[in-house]
């Protein structure tokens, strides 16, 4: 009986392998669609949902590409690594990452590269050794300069201005603030001094409180630049609640859907952001061309479909374009989109 059973098992096993083989081939033939995973900071974020929307548009335009849009529920590096590990195990063809930590993701990104997975980052960069290239929405200098220009236009170049940032440790915030200060050195801003920089930690209650603190500490304050979507909306709410709309103006980087009310109530004249749909689209277009064999190394030019081309700098980063400015005239239209 025992031998019999063993033989039976062998036959069954051989049969299984035999039948699996054709399936394997068939599977390869069907797997013509390449899979690109877009891994963002956390789920439940309108901004990234819009990016994913753009990625899907790019996939449709390129053809033969499936987009997997995923993330952890919490914006931490540990949880993001777990998500990436799972995707590497599934052997997707490409990864587009918005990193929760630039260095912590290097090992998992290297592992992906070893398995032939093409890795690029967008929004928040993975350190250079972990990715082929990073696509910035705009250049740091353009983003910084734009925000100073916006508040100068609103205030007519006169009055005290403060910066309401997110956390004092965030790389992108600090580099934008540096770029703003660079722009501020120009003589046309001499009557518009920067009085202070405060941090709202990207929490609604803390940002609101910091805004109230600014109003108390600087009675002559006329304008605030908040280069963070949470800071600008909480700051704008504090301005409206304090009855200061029309006296103090906030500008910065915000989402039209969140800022619409405050623009209409006069707490915010103009604000800017890149279009996240276009951003997700451009990043996917770049990865698509890399999957088709394009070189995206430093000094090379990458194609972004209808968004044109971008030059990859020596640090492996490229910029999509200028930030897009919103005001009373167009905010309602875009509020419906993102």
């Amino acid at each position, binding site marked *: 009986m025992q031998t019999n059973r063993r033989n039976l098992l062998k036959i069954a096993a051989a049969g299984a392998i035999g039948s699996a083989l054709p399936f394997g081939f068939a599977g390869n033939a069907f797997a013509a669609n390449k899979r690109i995973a877009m891994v963002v900071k956390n789920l439940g974020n309108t901004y990234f949902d819009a990016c994913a929307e753009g990625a899907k548009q790019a996939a449709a335009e390129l053809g033969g590409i499936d987009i997997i849009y995923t993330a952890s529920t919490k914006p931490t590096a540990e949880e993001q690594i777990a998500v990436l590990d799972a995707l590497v195990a599934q052997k997707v063809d490409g990864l587009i990452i918005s990193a929760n930590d630039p260095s912590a993701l290097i090992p998992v990104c290297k592992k992906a590269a070893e398995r032939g997975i093409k890795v690029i980052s967008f929004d928040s960069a993975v350190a250079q050794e972990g990715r082929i290239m990073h696509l910035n929405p705009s250049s740091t200098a353009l983003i910084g300069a734009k925000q100073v220009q916006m508040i100068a236009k609103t205030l007519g170049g006169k009055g005290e201005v403060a910066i309401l940032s997110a956390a004092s440790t965030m790389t992108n915030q600090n580099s934008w603030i540096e770029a703003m200060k660079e722009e501020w050195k120009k003589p046309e801003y001499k009557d518009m001094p920067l009085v202070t920089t405060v941090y709202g930690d990207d929490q609604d209650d803390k940002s609101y409180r910091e805004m109230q603190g600014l109003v108390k*500490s600087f009675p002559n304050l006329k304008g605030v630049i908040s280069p963070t979507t949470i800071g600008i909306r909480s700051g704008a709410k504090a301005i409206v609640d304090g009855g200061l709309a029309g006296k103090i103006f906030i500008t910065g980087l915000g989402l039209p859907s969140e800022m619409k009310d405050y623009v209409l109530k006069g707490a915010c004249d103009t604000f800017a952001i890149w279009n996240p749909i276009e951003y997700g689209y451009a990043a996917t277009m770049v990865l698509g061309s890399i999957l088709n064999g394009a070189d995206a190394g430093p000094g090379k030019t990458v194609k972004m479909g209808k968004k044109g081309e971008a030059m990859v700098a020596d640090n492996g980063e490229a910029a999509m374009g200028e930030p897009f400015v919103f005001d009373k005239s167009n905010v309602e239209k875009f509020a419906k989109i993102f």
Partner: protein
Amino acid sequence: MMPALLKNRDVLLALIVATLVLLVGLRAPVFLTAESLVSVLTDTSFLFMLALAQMAVILTRGIDLSVAANLALSGVMVTLAARSMPWLPIPVVLLLAIVIGAFFGAINGALIAGIGIPPIVVTLGTLSIYRGIIFVVAGPTWLTSKDMSTAFLDFPKSTLLGVPSLIVIATTVAAAFAYLLSQTQTGRGIYAVGGNPVAARYCGIDLSKQQFLVYTMSGAVSGLCGFLWASRYGIAYTDLAYGYELTVIAACVIGGVSVAGGIGTVRGALLGALFLGVVVNALPVINVSPFWQMLISGAVILAAVVVNARAERRSGKLILPEARRAAAGGSAV
């Protein structure tokens, strides 16, 4: 010898808060204006209410870690309800928020009182579950000011006889807790089951009834704060008040509420909340790094626990007259 008044920890804490306010006022006189002090109180209203509800829970030797998650969930649900039924008057929306919060609080209460699972485990679980449900009910989108009516958004700005609505509500909640805890049999029962559960049982006080009540109340207050939070900041999403439960518990501990149960006063919890409220509101005004804020609240929590531990240490009953005399001479307590 210290004046007897200073030995009262509430008086001491009140003095510390007053000193803090004056010190900040020295550096930034604008902080001492009536308008500014009212805005500190308005901002701290959330903490006042949540700390009181948390205190009732802690009095029964429990803990409610799900308050901030419940706040976020109730905030999102009530915002959704108000969006789909814009004709709802704000008082009804407010009542609805309380009911939703109380429902989720009652789930905690049922699991703890009915099945007898330890509170820290239950509320740790529901903390994640409640934040998770937000995804289920609201989907991945954020509810922002465009999803809220003007009446909804303007509620925190409204005033009653010149007093901001948030302060009015917080005062009402505080008065209700003060009455409940000190004037009613239920209130005394809450203290009793935390102070000495065995003795309370012998007296015929039902532990599970008290537990169910305090978790439901805690939920109701979270729900109320959920609506207020969403309308004040014009946003409702998963990360609303993320991690705020720890601030609430810190306010209780600083206010002299014993985590071992049975000890704590409404006055103490309010002062503890006020202390944290003053710290977080003062630092932006005097341009102090946010890390100092964490360091200061941490140090104060530890100091408060040390003071509490000394006050709570109950000496065993001394039988020998010599020992009693020695103890009476050696210690003032």
